C-alpha cells in the first residue's frame, strides 16, 4: 500500500499550515511530558467514569476508550468545504426518507431497485404515509468521513439511526483544555461547547402540534448496561432533561407520560437512543422489555416526536450507501460535494465476480453489520479467512458490499516508540431542526492505535483524539 496522506505532513515532509504551531510546540515539549499528560488524561477519564462496555467481554465490562493527546487539526477552509458537503448530504437523507415513506418518486424513477427497500429489514412499513414534524427524520446524524488526499472528503458511512460518540467530542475538548492550556493559547480553536444547546433547540423545534409552548424533551436510554450509557447520562445532564428508560414511560390515550414523584407528566419529544426494534413491544419485538407499549400508536397519533424518526435505518443501510451520490443528485439536482467510497454491490453479478477475483485486495462488509464486526480486510487476512469468506459471499451475495482498501489519512499519535502516524477518520455531528441545520465545528476523530491498522472502531482497539477546527 502506498504511503498514506498525513494530516500533519502531507505526502512527504511538507508541514501543512494548520499544524505549524503544533509542530513547534512538539519540538519544545519533552517526550516524557507528553507521556505524563497522557497518564493524567487517563486518570481523569477513569474518575469521570467515561467508559464504554464491550458486549460479551466479561473481563472488561467497563473500558476506557484510549485517548490520544495529539489533536487532529483542520483549517477553516477545509472545514467550510466539509460543512457544506455534510449539510447537502443530510438534506438529501431527509428528503429520501420522506419520499420512501410517502410518494416514492425515487423508486418510480428507477434510481434504486425496489427490493432493496421493501425486502430490507430496516424498512419500516409502519411509517408508510406517516407525517413527521417539519418532514425531518434524521435530527442527529453522524457522518463518518475519511480522507486519502488533501482535496477530497469521502463518506465512509452515514449514521442516521442513533449515532454515538458526541460525548467524546465534548469531553476530549474539556480534558485537552485542562491539560494543555498553553497549547490552546497558541491556537484559535473553534469551541464545541454549544453542542448541547444546539441539540436541545433542534429537539424542541420539532415538538408535535399538540405540545405546549414549552415542550418537554426526554432522552431515552436502554439502561445502564448499554455500551453508550455514559453518553446518554452525560447528554441528559448537559441538556438538562430527564434520562428515561422504557419503564419510566407510559402511554395513555395516545399521549406519552413519564412517571414522576409528582405523578404523570407529559413528554413531547423523545431523543431516543434505543433502536427501532426495541421501542414498542406491541409493534416491534414483543420480547423487548426496554420499550414502551403503545409508543408507536402515540407516534402515529402525532402526539410525540421521536428523534431520530422510526425507520431511518433505510437511509444509512450499507446497501443503500452506494446509491447516495444518485440520491443527492435526484433530490437536489446538485453534484455531491462529498465523495463516496467506490463500492461493489455483491448482489449484482458483475460486481460479485470482480469481488471474488480480488478478495485479497478488498474490504468486504456485511450490509447490515456495524462496529467493525463481520468484515473482511483482504490485505490483512490469512488465506484461510479469505476462503471462508468466499464461501459466505457465494452463499449470500446480497448480504455484502465490497470496497477498495483505502489508505486512510494518518495523524501523528503517541505510541510506545514516540510519535508515529496512525490512521484516522472523523465523525462530525449534524443537527437538523425546524429552521436550520447546524454542525458544531469539530467531531469525533477516531484513531487506529495499532501500527498499520485501518479499524478505528472503539470495540476493536481504536482510540480517540480531540478535533480542532482553526478559526480564520
Amino acid at each position: 500500500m502506498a504511503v498514506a496522506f498525513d494530516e500533519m505532513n502531507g505526502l512527504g515532509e511538507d508541514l501543512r499550515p494548520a499544524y505549524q504551531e503544533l509542530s513547534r510546540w512538539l519540538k519544545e515539549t519533552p517526550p516524557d511530558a507528553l507521556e505524563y499528560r497522557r497518564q493524567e488524561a487517563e486518570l481523569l477519564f477513569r474518575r469521570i467514569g467515561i467508559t464504554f462496555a464491550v458486549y460479551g467481554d466479561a473481563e472488561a465490562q467497563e473500558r476506557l476508550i484510549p485517548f490520544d493527546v495529539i489533536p487532529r487539526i483542520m483549517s477553516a477552509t477545509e472545514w467550510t468545504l466539509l460543512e457544506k458537503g455534510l449539510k447537502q448530504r443530510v438534506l438529501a437523507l431527509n428528503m429520501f426518507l420522506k419520499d420512501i415513506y410517502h410518494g416514492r418518486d425515487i423508486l418510480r424513477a428507477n434510481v434504486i431497485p425496489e427490493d432493496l427497500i421493501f425486502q430490507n429489514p430496516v424498512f419500516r412499513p409502519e411509517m408508510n404515509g406517516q407525517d413527521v414534524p417539519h418532514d425531518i427524520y434524521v435530527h442527529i446524524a453522524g457522518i463518518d468521513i475519511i480522507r486519502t488526499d488533501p482535496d477530497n472528503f469521502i463518506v465512509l458511512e452515514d449514521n442516521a439511526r442513533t449515532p454515538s460518540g458526541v460525548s467524546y467530542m465534548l469531553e476530549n475538548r474539556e480534558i485537552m483544555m485542562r491539560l494543555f492550556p498553553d497549547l490552546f493559547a497558541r491556537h484559535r480553536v473553534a469551541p464545541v461547547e454549544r453542542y448541547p444547546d444546539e441539540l436541545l433547540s433542534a429537539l424542541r423545534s420539532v415538538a408535535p402540534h399538540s405540545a405546549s409552548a414549552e415542550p418537554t424533551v426526554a432522552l431515552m436510554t436502554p439502561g445502564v448496561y448499554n455500551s453508550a450509557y455514559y453518553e446518554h447520562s452525560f447528554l441528559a445532564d448537559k441538556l438538562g432533561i430527564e434520562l428515561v428508560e422504557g419503564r419510566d414511560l407510559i402511554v395513555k390515550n395516545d399521549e406519552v407520560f413519564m412517571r414522576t414523584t409528582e405523578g404523570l407528566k407529559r413528554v413531547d419529544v423523545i431523543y431516543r437512543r434505543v433502536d427501532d426494534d426495541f421501542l414498542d413491544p406491541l409493534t416491534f419485538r414483543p420480547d423487548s422489555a426496554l420499550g414502551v407499549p403503545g409508543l408507536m400508536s402515540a407516534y402515529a397519533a402525532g402526539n410525540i416526536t421521536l428523534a431520530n424518526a422510526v425507520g431511518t435505518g433505510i437511509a444509512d443501510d450499507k446497501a443503500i450507501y452506494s446509491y447516495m451520490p444518485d440520491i443527492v443528485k435526484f433530490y437536489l439536482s446538485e453534484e455531491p460535494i462529498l465523495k463516496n467510497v467506490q463500492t461493489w454491490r455483491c448482489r449484482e453479478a458483475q460486481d460479485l465476480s470482480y469481488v471474488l477475483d480480488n478478495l485479497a485486495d478488498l474490504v468486504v462488509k456485511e450490509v447490515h453489520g456495524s462496529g467493525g464486526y463481520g468484515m473482511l480486510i483482504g490485505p490483512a487476512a490469512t488465506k484461510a479467512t479469505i476462503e471462508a469468506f468466499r464461501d459466505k459471499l457465494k452463499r449470500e451475495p446480497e448480504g455484502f458490499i465490497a470496497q477498495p482498501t483505502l489508505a486512510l489519512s494518518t495523524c501523528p499519535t503517541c505510541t510506545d516508540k514516540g510519535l508515529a502516524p496512525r490512521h484516522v477518520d472523523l465523525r462530525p455531528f449534524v443537527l437538523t431542526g425546524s429552521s436550520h441545520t447546524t454542525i458544531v465545528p469539530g467531531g469525533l476523530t477516531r484513531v487506529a492505535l495499532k501500527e498499520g491498522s485501518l479499524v478505528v472502531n472503539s470495540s476493536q482497539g481504536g482510540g480517540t483524539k480531540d478535533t480542532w477546527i482553526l478559526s480564520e
Partner: protein
Amino acid sequence: MLSRTAENLFWLARYVERAEYLARTIDATLRVTALPAAYVGKTNEWDSALLTAGVGASFYDHYEEANERNVIEYLSFSSENPSSIKNCIEAARLNSRSVRTALTSEMWDTINSAWIELQAVWNKGPANREELAKFLRFVQETSLRFDGSAYRTMLRNDAYWFSRLGVHLERADNTARILDVKYHMLLPEEEHVGGPLDYYQWTSILRSVSATTAYHWVYRETLKPWLIADLLILNDTLPRSLASCYSNLVRNLDQIGVAYGRQGASQRHARGIRNRLEHSNMDDIFQHGVHEFIQEFIADNSRLGEIITKQYLI
C-alpha cells in the same frame, strides 16, 4: 423528578449507610472478641453480629460455623450475601450510574472512587487484621465522604430529600437491630447482674453506633444500661438514635410535601412514629417490654419504607 430517579437516590443512600453500619459492627465485634473470655462471657459474638446485620439465617446456607473468618467474609466480601459491604458498594455504584444526572460530581466521585478501590485494592479481601482495619476504615470514610458531599453540594430539593430519607430510614433500622439483638443487655439493673462482662458489651453497642463519647457527654455517668437504651432510643440529640432519625424523616417528608403541595400517607405514618417516640419514656418502654417495643418499631419503620415507595417511588 422521575420516580425511578427518586428510588435510586433513596436506595443509593441506604446502601452506603448499610455498608458503614456493617463496617462498624465488624469493628465493634472484633474489639469485644479480642478481650479475654472473663470479660465478655461465652456468648458467640460473631453470631450476634450476624443477627444485627439481619443475615442470621442466610449465613448458614453457606457456612457451618459462625467464627471470625467466616462472618467477616460473609459480611464484607461475600458475593452470596446480597447485603455484604462489597455488594452494597457495588449496588451503590450501579444506582449512582443510573442517576448520574441527579448526583453532584463530588458524590459521584466518592462512590466511583470507592468502587474502583474496591476492585483494585480489595479484590481479594484483606490479608490480615491490619489490612482488615484499613478496609473497615475505608468503608467508613467512604460513607462520611458521601454524606459530606451530599450535605455540602446538593441542591436542597426533592433529590436531596429522597436521599436523606434513605439515610435515616436505614439508620433507624440499623440502630433498632442492634437494640433488638442486645436488648437483654439493656434491661434495668435489678433484672441483671452488672460486671466487667456487661461493661464491655455495652461499650460495644455504643461503638457500633459511634456513640461512646456522646454517652459521656450526655449523661456524665458511668455506663448504665437503661441510659444507653435512653440514648439510642429517645435522645433526639444523638444522630443515630431512633428519635433523631424520625425527626429527620418527618422533616424531609414535610419538605417534600410542601414542595409538591400535597401531604400523604407517608407523612402521616412518619409523624405517628415520631409522636410515639416523643411521648415515651424509658419506664414505659421497660413496662411494655423493650423487646416488643423494638420489634414494633422495626415493623413500623419498614412499613414506612413501603409507604414511601408506593407514594413516590413507583
